[in-house]
Structures are given as C-alpha cells and as structure tokens.
C-alpha cells in the first residue's frame, strides 16, 4: 500500500541530513536580540502574513478564495516550521508544514532548492489538505543560504480528475480523483516554467482561472520573500533568525504555561460520520482521547475507524484539524505560531484510518471530511477540559460549531451549448456552538475559517443558472441548552434560464444524525438536509399569481437526497433545498432563563412547541407564563429520573471539590457528585454516568433529524441523556452507536 514516492513516516520530523544542512543559514556567533528589536521585528512578520493574504485575495480570480476564504498564507523557518499564519483557514497551515519539511528532505539534492525557486504541490500525503488545493512553497535565501520559507495554499475550482470540482463521492481510491502532484518547480530562478504551468492547466476544466490563481500565489510569495530579505538587511540576518526562533520559543512557553494552569486529566469523545460514498449505508466514528499532564498535551486518535470510501483524509490534514481547535480554544490570547505550540503536543494515530488514510485511498474530501470531524473532536475534547478550568479559561470553550460542510456541485449545459459547472455554498457556514456564558451566533461561521462569507443572492443569480426562492435563518436548528447553539441557514432555488435539466453531486455528513454535538448537558444541533421537491414548477406558480417562499409551500412530496452521491437529476421544474447545521447547545435547557426563550420565540429562533417540550417554557403571546413554566419543568425533570425531584437537597458537596463538568464535582475522596444537590453519583469513582439516570431520546420526536436515520444507515443510534437522580438536572447528552457500551469520558488525575 505504500506510495511510489518517498512519503515520510507520518511522524513529525526534522530535516537533518547533510544535504539540507549545508544549505541552511548559520547565524553568526554571539548574536543577541533585545526585547525592543524583537517586538519591532515580530510586528513586521505578523503584518507580513496580512500583506501576503491581501495580495493573494486581491489578485486571485477565485470566488472560493475571496468569499469562502478557503486559503492560507504561512511563513516558516529554514527547516519548514510554520510560525506565522494569517487569519484564514488554519487547517491548511499545519498541513503545509509537512510539505515544507518533505521538500527540504527530498528536493535539496543536486542543488534542487535555489534562490528564486517556487514548488507547486497538490499531494495530500505530502502536505496539502486535498487535491483541490494547490500549494506553492518559496524558499527565502539570505546571504546565499536557505533562511526561511513562505508558502500559501488555495482551493481551486477545478484541478482535473473525473468529476468537475474535484470531489468524487463514487471514488474508491485516489485514481478516481484529481491526480496528486508532489512538489515540482513552477518557478525556477525567478522564471515561471511554462511547461509546468501547462501541465497543471491542461488537467483543469477552468484553465484560465487556474492560471490566474497560480499568478496570485506567485505574487503573494514574492511579497513574502522580498519582505523577509528586506527585514534581514535592515536588522541583520542573525537578528532576524533569532527573532524567528524566539517567536516559536515564546509560543511554546506561553502554551506550556497555559497548560500548567489547567487540571491534569483525560477526556474522550466520539464524532460520528455516516456513509462513505455512493451506495454505502455504514456508520463511522472518529474516536479520540486527550490526556493532559503538566505542560504536555496528547491526542490519541488511533481508535478511529478504518479508511473507507471517498470520505477520508490524510494525516497532515487531520493534524491541521486538531490544531484548528487548539489555537482558538486554548491560545486565543497567545502567540499563534503552530510550530511552537506543537512542541507541547503529541499526536498518536493509526495509519489506515479515516483520518490517516494510506495511499491509494480516496482523500479528495479531506478537509471537509476527516479534517473537519477532527476539528469537532478537538473542540469537544478541549472544551471538556476547559469545563474544569478557572472561570477566565472556561469562557473560551465552545460546544461544537456547525460541524459539516455541504458541498453541492451542479453541472448542466447553457442554452448556447456552453458547459456549466457551479457550486452552492450558502449553507456551508452554520450556527456557532454555545459558550458556557453566552449563546452561539446564528448562521455565522465555519469552525476553522471564522472569516468566511457567503455571496449575495444577486451575485449568485448573476453568475449561476439559479433563481433563489429564499435564504433564511432556520428556526429550531440550534442545539438547545442553558445557552443555545446558533441556528443554521436554509436556502431554496430552482434552475433558471436553462432549457435542459441539470445534475448535481452532493457531499456532506450529519444528515442521518446531528453532527454538532452539545456540551455538559446541551443538546446537539439539528441534522442537515438536502431535499428535492419534484415538479413544483415555481415559475408556473408565479404566472398564476402565487409566490411560494417556504418549504411548506412546495408540497409534501419530499425526496430526501442521499448525503453523499455523485449524480442526482435536477429538473427544470424541481426545487432544491439545502439546510445547514446549527451549533451545539451548552448545559441543561431547563436552566435557560425563560425570558431568553421568550425572546427566541419572538425572533423566530425557537418555535413555541420546542420552547414547551425542550425548554419547559410556556409562552403566552410575547411573554412567559411563569407558573405553567415551573410545572412544565418539574414534569420534564420527573420524566428524566422517574420520580419527583427531591425537594430538599442533599448535603452540599464538600468544600474544595474540583469541577469535572458544569454540575459535576469530584470530591477529595474521588467521588463524582452533583454540585446542585449534593447527590453522590459514582461512589468512589469519577464515572458520573454510572450513577446518573440514563434515558434515550427519540431524535425524530425531538426534532433533531429531518427523517429517520434508517433512511440512510443500518446502524441504530442512541441519543443518551444522563441526569442527576437527585435533582433531575441534565448532566450530559451524547450521541452514540446504540450497540456500543457507555464509557466514562472524563477523568481528573490526582496530583
């Protein structure tokens, strides 16, 4: 199964062989760096990533880069350690670190890395998120030696392969996908190599755009190379070298200090993903355990299921996905130098799994499959740990943010015979996860690309053969909780201005079950859906004076599209509806302030029914019926634990207990207790689930899925809720494969 190429072991490694060592810049002995110069230089380097990003965005012809912001810019040291990245898709930056290191190890022989060179690549095993992304790496030479690297990646609309856009849900291996390309010199000694460019553009259905994008990437790298050389000239190469090292050292030390502020322990989580491609009905898990001891963090994801179908990613992508959770949750106020931060992190994974697929597995969906699922996993793991932290650090946790990226590609033929291919990105951003102190944001984000944006309806109608019927925020799509996850968006459109039907390819996860999980009792967000309403004939309705603009007005005959399928017809009179994912909720929904629920109802984020059934809040007009709310909430608690909650609390938990979760403490004796009522949940262990009352929730009844999971998968799923048997407070909600045993997912180590 090994690739023909020398693909490095998946471990983090450093180039150290003699060839590359001879290239490297050596700082002069006795060089020093004072704090003022360091501050001045690090500001210039931080500004440089912004300048590279601006150059790339403004020069590029691509909507994906400018609107979806699916790109990254990086600066690395001479050995390829990435210490500077822009504010865009983080997941790509650490993947690119693998590419820099591979290039140093494998391209330095016989003068293969020279000043003025730039290496193009699209090989996910070497260090790009998937083959639709193209990376361009430029060595920076100072005083004739290899001093640093700059590099960027861009998602291209088409890099070839059997299916336009690069994703192929029918792919069984990489040979049915765009061909991966290891690093090759697109620019040699400052000169663009036309034959290399043409090899790339010849594969593409959009050669002009690809060519323009390559020029944007070159321009962004040129800005980086020139600026680093200017800074080296102004402050001396040795001083700049020391500053680059110190940025990484600082990031490491700040991160280790941060880890020391957190309790030692172990946390585990599973993120589920249904079906691996056309025709599959399987259910798969990304399974991880995070252990934190002192100033070290370890992620072990080796229990993840085996690679299968088209929905895999390579390890560089998955690693990037984990770092994309670590930086915003643990380092929001620290230096974002991944190479430094990663010195305190160990990764354990098993080659041959969904998130560390081996050649020649299909990996073209890498970032939106394994990469994104791993970001959700990392978010859940780190947030569980932060639940045990000081108030100031706990503020940074999140329930999972919109954990799926609906990728919808449309193909057709224009009346003039021109082929049409377009994609629909409206529901890619979703609701953000709830915080421990505030609701998530409605229809506002992608977890690893916070600045992404969707196009205006008018721009899409201008550029694509669609007429939109609506684009709205979707009520009841956010995860319920004391703090609610943000709602997602939903849009509907029809083919427009065409005389032949279209065809679409769909690829998403989280349709059979929710994918944005809740935290500390919070519920998951509603699942996503692709719905097709056949033969509605909206334009015909317009002619009759009717203007359907709600899904309920398209009729009741719904075709629930398979979440991963390479070809679905889209007829001229059909309506396509895509609903994205909200964010997960935080804490017991019965603890939500009833006035917030009333406001949610007024603003259309929560329905009256859900307010009653999930939040136990009775709404009368615009206001809360408080008496009725109290009795509703008592009834729900009763139903959870099978008896009226205790009216008199047990003894409060002993002072000095440590927190394990929102309402679970660990006593000095090592027992888990409910911190609301003092009930001992586990008699001497920390496994509070063992002593909690567990019941399962029907996801369809609870409005968490659109259609029963059995429509898409064969496995039975269980949404398990664990409540305190004393007071009926909801302590944890988890989504699991029903046949799998209940496992303790949190443990604090004793000092």
């Amino acid at each position, binding site marked *: 199964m090994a690739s023909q190429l020398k693909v490095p072991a998946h471990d983090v490694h450093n180039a150290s062989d003699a060839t590359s060592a001879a290239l490297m810049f050596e700082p002069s002995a006795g060089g020093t760096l*004072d*704090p*003022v110069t360091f*501050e*001045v230089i690090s500001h210039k380097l931080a500004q440089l990533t*912004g*300048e590279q990003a601006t*150059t790339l965005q*403004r*020069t590029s*012809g691509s*909507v994906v880069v*400018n609107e979806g912001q699916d790109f990254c810019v990086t600066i690395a040291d001479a050995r390829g350690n990435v210490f500077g990245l822009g*504010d865009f898709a983080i997941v790509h930056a650490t993947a690119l670190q693998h590419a820099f290191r591979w290039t140093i190890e494998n391209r330095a022989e016989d003068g293969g890395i020279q000043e003025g060179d730039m290496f193009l690549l699209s090989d996910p095993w070497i260090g790009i998120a998937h083959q639709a992304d193209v990376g361009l790496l430029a060595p920076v030479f100072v005083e004739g030696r290899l001093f640093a690297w700059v590099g960027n990646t861009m998602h291209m609309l088409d890099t070839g392969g059997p299916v336009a856009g690069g994703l192929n849900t029918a792919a069984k291996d990489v040979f049915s996908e765009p061909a991966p390309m290891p690093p090759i010199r697109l620019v040699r000694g400052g000169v663009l190599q036309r034959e290399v460019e043409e090899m790339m553009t010849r594969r593409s259905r959009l050669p*002009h755009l690809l060519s*323009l994008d390559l*020029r944007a990437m*070159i*321009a962004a790298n*040129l800005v980086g190379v020139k600026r680093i050389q200017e800074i080296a000239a102004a402050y001396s190469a040795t001083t700049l070298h020391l500053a680059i090292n110190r940025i990484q050292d*600082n990031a490491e*030390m*700040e991160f*280790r*200090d941060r880890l020391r502020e957190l309790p030692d322990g172990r946390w585990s989580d599973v993120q589920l993903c249904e079906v691996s491609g056309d025709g599959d009905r399987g259910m798969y898990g990304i399974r991880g355990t995070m252990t934190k001891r002192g100033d070290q963090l370890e992620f072990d994801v080796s229990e993840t299921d085996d690679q299968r179908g088209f929905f895999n990613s390579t390890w560089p992508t998955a690693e990037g996905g984990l770092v994309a959770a670590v*930086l*915003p*949750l643990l380092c*929001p*106020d620290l230096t974002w130098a991944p190479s430094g931060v990663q010195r305190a992190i160990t990764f354990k994974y098993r080659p041959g799994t969904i998130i560390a697929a081996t050649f020649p597995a299909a990996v073209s969906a890498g970032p939106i499959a394994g990469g994104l699922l791993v970001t959700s996993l990392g978010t859940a793991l780190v947030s569980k740990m932060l639940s045990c932290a000081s108030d100031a650090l706990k*503020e*940074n946790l*999140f329930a999972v943010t919109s954990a799926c990226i609906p990728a919808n590609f449309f193909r057709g033929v224009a009346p003039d015979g021109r082929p049409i291919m377009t994609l629909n990105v409206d529901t890619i951003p979703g609701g953000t996860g709830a915080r421990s102190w*505030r609701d998530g*944001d*409605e*229809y*506002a984000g992608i977890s690893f690309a*916070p*600045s*992404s*944006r*969707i196009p*205006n309806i*008018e*721009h899409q*109608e*201008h550029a694509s053969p669609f*007429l*939109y019927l*609506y*684009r*709205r*925020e979707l009520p009841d799509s956010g995860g319920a909780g004391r703090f609610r996850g943000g709602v997602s968006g939903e849009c*509907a459109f029809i083919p427009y201005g065409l005389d032949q039907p279209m065809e679409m390819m769909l690829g998403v996860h989280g349709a059979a079950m929710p994918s944005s999980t809740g935290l500390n009792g919070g519920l998951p967000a509603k699942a996503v859906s692709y719905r097709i309403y056949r033969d509605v004939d909206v334009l015909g309705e*317009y002619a009759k004076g009717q*203007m359907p*603009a709600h899904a309920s007005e398209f009729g009741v005959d719904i075709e629930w599209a398979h979440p991963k399928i390479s070809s679905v017809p889209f007829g001229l009179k059909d309506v396509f509806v895509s609903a994205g994912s909200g964010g997960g909720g935080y804490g017991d929904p019965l603890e939500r302030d009833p006035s917030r629920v009333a406001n949610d109802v*007024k*603003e259309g984020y929560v329905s009256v029914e859900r307010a009653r059934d999930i939040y136990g809040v009775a709404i009368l007009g615009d206001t809360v019926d408080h008496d009725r709310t109290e009795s509703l909430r008592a009834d729900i608690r009763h139903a959870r634990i099978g008896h009226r909650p205790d009216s008199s609390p047990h003894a409060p938990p002993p002072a000095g207990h440590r927190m394990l979760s929102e309402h679970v403490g660990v006593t000095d004796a090592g027992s888990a207790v409910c911190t609301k009522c003092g009930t001992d949940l586990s008699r001497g262990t920390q496994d509070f689930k063992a002593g909690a009352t567990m019941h399962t929730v029907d996801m369809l009844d609870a409005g968490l899925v659109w259609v029963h999971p059995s429509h898409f998968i064969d496995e039975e799923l269980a949404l398990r809720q664990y409540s305190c048997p004393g007071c009926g407070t909801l302590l944890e909600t988890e989504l699991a494969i029903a046949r799998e045993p209940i496992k303790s997912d949190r443990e604090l180590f004793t000092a």
Partner: protein
Amino acid sequence: MTTGPYTIGVDTGGTFTDTVVVDAEGVVTIGKQLSTPPEFVGGVEASVAAAADALGLSLDSLLEDTKQFLHGTTIVVNALVTGRGAKIGLIATRGFGDTVFIARTTSRSAGLRSDQLHRYAHLSRPKPTIPVSKSLVREVIERVDRDGRVLMPLDEASVRDAIKEMLDEGAEAIAVCLLWSFRHPAHEERVAAIAREIAPDVPVTISSELVRQIGEYERTTTTGYNAAMSGIAADYVDRLSSRLAGNGLKQPPLIMQGNGGVASVAKIRQAPVNLVGSGPAGGVLASRALAAKLGIENVICTDVGGTTFDVGLIVDGDLELTPTTTLHQHRLFLPLVDVVSIGAGGGSLARAEIVGGTGRLRVGPESAYSVPGPVCYGRGGTIPTVTDADLILGMLDPEFFLGGQIKLDVEAAREAIRIHVADPLGMSIDEAASGIVEIADSHMADLMRQVTVQRGHDPRKFTAFLFGGGGPLHGSAYAAKLGVRNMVVPGGALASVFSAWGIASADINHSFQQSVAMTVPGDPAILNETFEALERAAQEQLSSDGVSKSEQVLQRRVDMRYTMQTNEVTVSLNSDVVNDATLADLAERFSVEYQRLYGKGTGFKDAGIEITACRVQALGMLSRPELKSSISGRGSSSAASQPPVYRERSVYWPELHARVSTPVYRQESLEVGSTITGPAIIELPTTTATVRHGQTLVVDEMSNYFITQNSAA
C-alpha cells in the same frame, strides 16, 4: 485688516469645536471652543463667535458677510453607533427578510483586527440595529430577475399591510431594499409612494435611490442605516441652519460627507448615511489643500491622536476613495475617503511580559484613553503610556504641555515605567522609555507601509504630513523609518484646527453609481446610456444645490475586473462618448493599473475583462481665494536664518541610544527661512515637533515646517 466675503469651516468633535474663517484675501482666523453635547449647535455658535471676536467683528456681522459655511460633524454617526438611531422597519422581497441578520455570515468578524479575531469565544454578531428585531421586518410579494424582468408584480395589498403592521410595531422610519432593484427601481418607488400615502411624516429610504449597486446585503445595510439616521440628522441640520440663519447667515450651511465633499442640508436630510466617515476625511482634505498650495503631488497623511493613528493618501493630488466601509461590524456600500486606523497613539499602554524567563515589551493596542490617561497627567493612570515615555526622554516639557495648561508629573511617569517595564526587563528607565517609543514608532511606520505598499505605491516617493497631537513629535521618526525623505508639519495656528481648515476647502461632491454587466470588447451603448442617465441625475442634483453649469465638474469612472474575479479596479473614463476605441483604451489602462497594484505578470487578459459598474463623481467647485500667509507667520525674508535657542535640555534620542544636550525652540521665535539642524525640539502651544539627527527643518511663509532627511544620513 480683513475683508469679506468670508468662507467658514467648522469641525465639531467630541471635545472641541474648531472654526476657521478665510477672508477674501485668503487670510485665516481661527476659533476654538468646547463642544456642547447633547445639542452641539451652541458650541458651533460659540466657536464661530470666538473667531469673529478675533477679527473684531460681531457674530452677526461675520455671518452676514459669509458666502459659504461648511460644517463637519461626527455626532450623527456617533448617535447611531451608540444605539440612538431611529427604530426602523425594513421591507424586503418575499423569502429574503433575513438578509441583514445573516449579513453574508460575516458580522462576527467584519472590521475586526487579527488579535480580536483570534478570540473566537468573544466574537459575536452585533446586536441588531437595522432593525432591532425581526418583528420589524416585512417581506412583500414581488420578484425581479437578474435582467430586470418582473417575474412577480408588486402586490400592493401586501405592501399596505406590511407598512401598517410595522408602524403598529413602533417603526419610526422605513427602509426598503428589494432584490435587483438597481435594475428595476419601480417596485421600490411604488412602496415608497404607498408608505408616504399611509404615513406622510415617516421618513422612507429606498435602496435604488441611494445606491444602485449589485449586492442586496450591503444595499440593505446602507439603506437601513440611512433610515435609522434620518431623524437625528434632520433634527441636527435643521437646528443648525435655523440658528445660523437667525444670526444672519444668508446661504444655508453645507455639510461634510465621508466622500470628502460637502452636500446641501436638503441632500443630507435625504441621504444622511453620507455623513459616515466624515470625521477622518477632514485631515485628508486639509492635506490635499495644503499639498496643492505647496505643489506636492503625493502625500501620506498621518494623524497621531491619543488612541488611534490614522493614515490616508493623496496620490497625484487627489484623494483615494474606498468603495465600501464597515460600521458596527456591518459592511456598507459607501465611497469614502480611504483612512486606515490602528490602535496606536500617545495613550497606548506599555507593559513587560515575561515568558519562560525572556522578556517582551508590548505597546498597544490597548489605550489609557483620555480617562485615566497617561500616568503623567495625574488623573489616576498607573500603567505607562507612550506619552509618559516621551516625557521621560525629554521630548516634552512638563511645564509647557498644551502651552502649560497641564503640568505633567515626571516622577510618577518614571516610577510607572520603572515598575512596569524597566525593572522586569532589566533595563534602565531611559532604555525602557526609548524602547516604548521605538516600538510605537515602528508600528506606525508599518501601518504607513501597509497603506502605501499594498496599494502599489513606493512610500519613499511620498511626502509625509505630520499632524494630530503626536504627529509632529513622532512623525520625524516613523516617517524616517519608512525611508520617507520629506516631511511637513502643517504650519502655525492651522495645525490645531487642521481638520476644520480642510472642511473649509471642500467642494460639493455627490457619488452616483450604477451596476452594469458587460464584457470588453462589448457594446459601447451600455456605457453611453448608463453614463447619460447618471450624469442627468448628477446635474439635477448640482443644479438643485445652486451650482451653476460652469462650476459643475462630472468625473466618470468604471469598475473593471478580470472575468470571475471578485475585486475591482476603478479606472477613470475621460471621454464623453464611448466607442470601441475608448473601450480598448479602458482595457489597456485597466491592465496597466492592475499590474501596478498587484505586480508585473499577475494580470491575465485571456480570462476576459468585465465592466461591473459606472460611477460619476459630481463636483460643484466652490470658488475661494488662494490661501495666504497664516496669521502667525512672521518675517518677510526667505533667507536661511538661525533662530534663537529658547533653552537647552537633555533629551534621550532612541535612534542615537543616548542622551544629548538638545536645543529647544519656541514657535514664536521662528520666522520664514528659519533653519534648524537636528537633533532639536520645537515647542508649539498645542504640540511639540522634533527634528532628528540627520534632519533639517526650514520654516516657510505659511509657517509650515519642512523637515528633510539629509542625504548623508
């Protein structure tokens, strides 16, 4: 002796209201008074009265002899940002009422800095303001397609219901933005007519009247903010006009807009959103006027305030406009004078951080603001600031800050720097203070670099104008760091009212635009028809402003891009009739401009070129005298002379890493031709200017200080 008729410029800020009176000979007189919140008009009156007093005139006699009264104010926009705008009702096409809430999913991050973006858990969508609740949004039945064809006629009954319902909900103004209305405005116009019929007193804004540009989200925000501002704006300009008229002003005042021009009171009542960005525009306008007078083509305008550092550009003698702006984390379609800001200024806080045994020195972006302010102000500040560092280094005289109005506490500043910076980092107090200033100057130079280089300009070919409280002090350092050889500190008394003086120099300016969809080569008729319609509207507007034909200037521009590219380059179009040759010329100039902005070889003609919008800037040129010597200029000879040194004091110069006994000059002893070699310090009543080692300062006849970097240095 001065003579009318006069031109008056008044700039109302949060603290002061500044006035500049220019007489028929171009001689300038100033007035400065405290602003008078919340009504502010009293402060305008007092400030103008102060200038009148300096001229030996009564307020009435000055105003009676005034032909132009130009006024800039930030108070309307501030009221909006602080949530005091009108409660608006919003009307959208059925299916698209959530547009402004969804905000293209950008409102968690729009307009935020990198360090803010990293704090994911603290990012949030802004609190809804336009409108404040979804219960104030109504969707009406109508639909137009991309070609402007009506697919679904406007259902007037649904419009009537919508308007009545939102009025019942308490709407105080109505905003209307329908899909594709810039191609087919009739539906919006009809909605407005129905609204006026139902509620004649409720202000209505429709998007197609304000901004004919593709992009329903930005059109909605622009329309919504306009509606939300309409009440406050109308109230303010009405009170101002009637008070000034009562004092004898014959022409109604003209109001400063964010696009760098002024507009009539009537126009502002109709389109108050144009006030957005008018605050920072004043300094750039003043720079343009001064640059024109001095014959300088390219200027980096730098303004160092207490909390922010603002940078704008004059290129080839003209302002740079940016087509969009961000307000309250929402993006708007508004052509604004391009001014970029960072959190850096006299109030920027400095602190040491120790990471793993290594010290860091951080400066900004957090600020001490004016309360508590720098430690040396003695108002409770304990964390050292850039101003405290300036003081320790000897750049500021503790007895002569703001001309002696505030006595600075040197010991407190030293102690704060010792505790928070010097001791933790193992530096001397001088080194610590020098480090703070060095870092602040370097950050400012980096922003100037960003603004120039990222727009394809070489900063070394620019002259830097240094103004604001801290510009003359820090500018000779930050401009030099960037390789700028020529700097100007705007002269004499003008420096303290620079923005008001810029406002007094403004012309009438309206921006008209229309989105189009055409490729090049293509049908020139599209451009001819579009420009004809835009210019007709522009001429009507200028005529209603009372601008005669001979004073009207219409500038045509087109937005162009490579096919499927999202970012546009605006190219000017200098011919009245567009034909194939003109189009070819446009394409050529687009390619040249594109390569200048983005680098050689990055253009790619084969992808095709599109024209996406036509723009017309409608200027009403206001006649005014040529600027004369400022009142504070003295002397008549321009021969080089050595001015008398006021005193010497020990100053630590960061670039020399040493204390040097340095001559200090006072403004009143300088005259035309005075020449000072650095290092030196010049104390003015409102600021302090520095001349660095290797620089020479010369005073011109307008009292401007020209600072030149010597070639040898």
